[in-house]
């Protein structure tokens, strides 16, 4: 679906990294197949389909079947990457994801495309902001939301090599590459993107670069914010969360509902282990009609919005 997205020079649509990596892996590993729901184009799988016509299984507009078929293909020795708009692969097929993938513990890679609010004007049915909350409690299922093109490629590679169920939450929204020295992808480990001890901003996916911008703005005011890229939501990096709590104030940022997702996970963890003020930046519920840019601004997913949340958290820390 056509939609307007914020873009700038040098920013990447991470779907390109996803398909390039998948095709390279599939060249080497004949077990890899793709399963889709009439979503060849939106998953950018056209060239995969050309290269491997019989390894692209399009079940039609039938997400429950799609996920079940993924489980069956894993049973049959394949390594399926099941790819569809994240709103449908999670919401529509949630029980299949729970029972057939997570509980049955099949080696299936679920790939949620155009996650968050990438479908902007198409509205709440097409937004996927509940997926973190739905999937985070599912045991066995690794949940990863990469922050940029590099991390998308690394996560796809990691998932292919890992024996077990994975949910990759990808986005079509252009993002810049994060500037981190000597990067290594480590599933389940938060990545420190900015150093700082006054507070910690924990971000995921498309919002990490906004958190970095906010930290740069805060630095000009003498506030040293640590920024963590919490790409893996399940399992959580508890050590990084302990250290974040040490800074005495936390802001969470996600292109998702503030209930039950990253913000929910961090609030849960700190309340149980080390209570500190937590300010959650994300979406409150069903949102009004509007473009991606409009909704990001309106709900504070911006450098300014995150910096303001940081100041609220700091004020609570000092109170």
């Amino acid at each position, binding site marked *: 679906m056509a939609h307007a997205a914020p873009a700038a020079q040098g920013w990447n649509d991470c779907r390109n990294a996803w398909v390039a990596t998948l095709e390279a892996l599939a060249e080497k590993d004949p077990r890899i197949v793709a399963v889709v729901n*009439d979503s060849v*184009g939106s998953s950018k799988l056209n060239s995969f389909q050309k290269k491997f016509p019989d390894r692209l299984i399009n079940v039609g507009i039938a997400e429950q079947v799609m996920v079940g078929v993924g489980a069956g293909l894993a049973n049959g020795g394949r390594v399926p990457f099941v790819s569809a708009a994240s709103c449908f692969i999670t919401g529509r097929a949630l029980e299949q994801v729970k029972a057939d993938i997570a509980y049955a513990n099949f080696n299936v890679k679920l790939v949620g495309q155009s996650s968050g609010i990438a479908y902007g*004007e198409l*509205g709440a049915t097409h937004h996927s902001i509940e997926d973190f909350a739905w999937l985070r409690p599912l045991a066995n299922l690794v949940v990863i939301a990469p922050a940029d093109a590099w991390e998308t490629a690394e996560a796809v590679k990691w998932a292919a090599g890992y024996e077990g169920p994975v949910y990759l939450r990808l986005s079509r929204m252009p993002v810049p590459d994060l500037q981190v020295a000597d990067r290594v992808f480590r599933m389940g480990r938060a990545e420190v993107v900015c150093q700082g001890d006054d507070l910690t901003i924990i971000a995921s996916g498309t919002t990490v670069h906004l958190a970095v911008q906010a930290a740069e703005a805060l630095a000009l005011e003498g506030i040293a914010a640590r920024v963590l890229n919490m790409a893996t939501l399940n399992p959580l990096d508890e050590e990084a969360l302990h250290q974040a709590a040490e800074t005495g104030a936390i802001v969470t940022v996600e292109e998702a509902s503030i209930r039950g997702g990253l913000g929910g996970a961090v609030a849960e963890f700190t309340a149980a282990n080390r209570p500190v003020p937590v300010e959650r930046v994300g979406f409150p519920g069903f949102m009004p*009609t509007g473009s991606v840019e409009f909704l990001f601004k*309106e709900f504070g997913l911006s450098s300014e919005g995150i910096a303001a949340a940081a100041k609220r958290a700091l004020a609570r820390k000092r109170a």
Partner: protein
Amino acid sequence: MRRTAFEMVHRAQLGHPGGDFSAIDAMATLYFGVMNYDVRRPNWEDRDRFIMSKGHATGALYTALCGAGYFPEDWLQTYMQPHSKLNGHPNRNYLPGVETNTGPLGHGFPVAVGIAIAGQLRGASYRTFVLTGDGEQQEGSNWEAAMVAGHRKLANLTLIIDRNRLQQGAGTEETSGLDPLDQKYAAFGWDVEMIDGHDHAALLATLGRAPGNKPRCVIANTVKGKGVSFMENQASWHHGVPNDAQFAQAMKELV
């Protein structure tokens, strides 16, 4: 109506014009020839109901609702703008005349079955019409709904399948074939009629005829993008949007 829908899509640079154009003749027939409703009382309990199960076809739906008088014409200008009541997919909490929220395929038909059962329970005279895409029929929820409706002999229910033979990325028959759709619905306990979905006389005769004793399935053979030469039967116009030249050309053809 096609002109109005295409103006909305052109202005917003968003929408699903191919599926708007295949469905629009059936919708015009329903709203301006068949259905009994009162825009001053959108919640009138005995109104006939229409449910747009293929919720992406809002260009067609909003044009019909506006033409029927549910909301002023200038609202069409706000299609998909911030805070617009005309969201990309219909929301009953935003607009009168929208019976239920759709957008994920395979939701409208089960809701229509519920509306029809409510009418049956009350012995009400209203009819319920639901329009699905043909690709949409690949969703299993439709077949669960079809089974319930056939079992309960929901004669007050009419399903229209917009049989344009295309879905988002390709043809239905090359993706996950549906034929023979008529025999499938007949086997599920439905009266089935296959008609030309752009023939207003045929649409009026079939949709306007009083209910029989089974639910009615109308397979409307249509053309995706109907009415604009370069859009007809092109999957790329599922959610393609026109540039200014294409828009001007289409306006010449749509008279």
